[in-house]
């Protein structure tokens, strides 16, 4: 589905990604986890093809990331909710629907799917942060993309809604959609089918949550992440 090979990205004079290679399998929820500033957003931008890369390659659905053919099959939700604050939720959704040649029905369905049916007439600028990011998510669901790339979609959501959103992600994956979801909250890691752990622009873990727990010898993923970082430090020292 997504194949990243030796990806190196520099932003300004700083190297943000130091040769990352990984594969994201189709029809699964892959979590991209790491502290803020670790390079999550840069990797995501490279996958959707808006990031200038220094070297290496990113292939999505067999095509180079960002190719024109992929623009119908990849849905992207940026970290800051990228919807128009001076339009209502419904108007936003209908505009994004029109970009995919879809009508009002598809737009309204996506708004209902993220639980914003009752707020659909409100201006996005008047919504709470959590509602705003759900409005942004709705706009990405409309085209029913084969790949959904979500940059921290659950920030600021209440626990019930967060659980609902994860339920929706898994339902989408079960229906064949591939999801790449970034998060800096470790308790969300356990909800993913696979994990990519990233720190300082290096991939330090790429496996299922169970395998990562087993390898680190702890049930706590936060602790497992810590042990992975420490063991890497030792390798470098040795």
């Amino acid at each position, binding site marked *: 589905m997504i194949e990243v090979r030796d990806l190196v990205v520099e*932003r*300004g004079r700083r190297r943000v990604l130091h040769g990352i290679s990984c594969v994201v399998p189709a029809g699964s929820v892959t979590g991209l986890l790491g502290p803020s500033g670790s390079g999550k957003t840069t990797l995501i931008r490279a996958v*959707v*093809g*808006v*990031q*200038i890369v220094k070297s290496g390659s990113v292939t999505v659905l067999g095509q180079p990331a*960002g190719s024109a053919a992929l*623009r*119908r099959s*990849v849905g*992207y*939700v*940026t*970290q*800051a*909710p*990228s*919807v*128009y*604050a*001076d*339009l209502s939720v419904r*108007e936003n959704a209908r*505009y*994004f629907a*029109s*970009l*995919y*040649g879809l009508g009002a029905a598809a737009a309204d369905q996506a708004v209902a799917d993220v639980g914003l049916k009752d707020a659909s007439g409100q*201006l996005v600028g008047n919504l709470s942060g959590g509602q705003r990011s759900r409005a942004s998510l709705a*706009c990405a669901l409309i*085209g029913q993309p084969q790949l959904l790339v979500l940059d921290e979609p659950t920030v600021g959501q209440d626990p019930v809604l967060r659980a609902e959103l994860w339920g929706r992600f898994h339902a989408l994956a079960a229906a064949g959609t591939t999801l790449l979801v970034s998060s800096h909250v470790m308790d969300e890691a356990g909800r993913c089918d696979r994990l990519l752990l990233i720190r300082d622009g290096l991939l330090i873990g790429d496996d299922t949550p169970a395998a990562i727990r087993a390898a680190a010898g702890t049930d706590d993923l936060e602790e497992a992440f810590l042990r992975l970082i420490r063991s890497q430090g030792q390798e470098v020292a040795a």
Partner: protein
Amino acid sequence: MIALATTARILRQLRHDRRTVALLLVVPALLLTLLYFMYQDTPPAFDRIALIMLGIFPFTIMFLVTSIAMLRERTSGTLERLLTTPLRKTDLLFGYGLAFSLAAVVQGAVATGVAYWLLGLDTSAGAGLILLIAVVDAVLGVAIGLLCSAFARTEFQAVQFLPVVVVPQILLCGLFVPREQMAGWLQAISDVLPLTYAVDALGSAGATMWRDVTIVAGAAVVALILAAATLRRRTP
């Protein structure tokens, strides 16, 4: 189709911002009224200056509105997102161009109506032609605004393009000093500034007028093409 949907979306955004709509419609007419009282004792001077202002106002206002609107699209992340969808760069630019041109038609109609019927503006060309030229001037402002927004990272910077890009054109367009009386090198600069032809068109008639309008429209198309070239899908 996507371009038209984009136009509709931008007009909807405008509609939700009632204060901006009111300012767009009322301010040029108010400024013309101010001119009327300034030149109450010399009606020919009012006729000359008000006519030129009917071209300068839409150009300046649409430049400012468009460059800020496009900049907001960049800073809010919606541009980055749009460029990952099937939308083409020309859809976006055409959408903006059409939306603000339509706004300019309404704005121009109010300003021209006030100038001719309330303030008794007297010109050789009819009000309809003057409105057409005013709208073409507005389209030029939109196109240059879209281009300039590519070079600004913040609203502060975008606003600074007004004194850099617009004011020199106003100074050299023949409003303050007739172009024939300018030094040769100033005339040469004036010759390559599109607003010169926009103002020229308002004062001339027949073939010269259509030539000027064509030059202004051509400059707008060139600015739009350059704007498309500066719109990058991939950024650092």
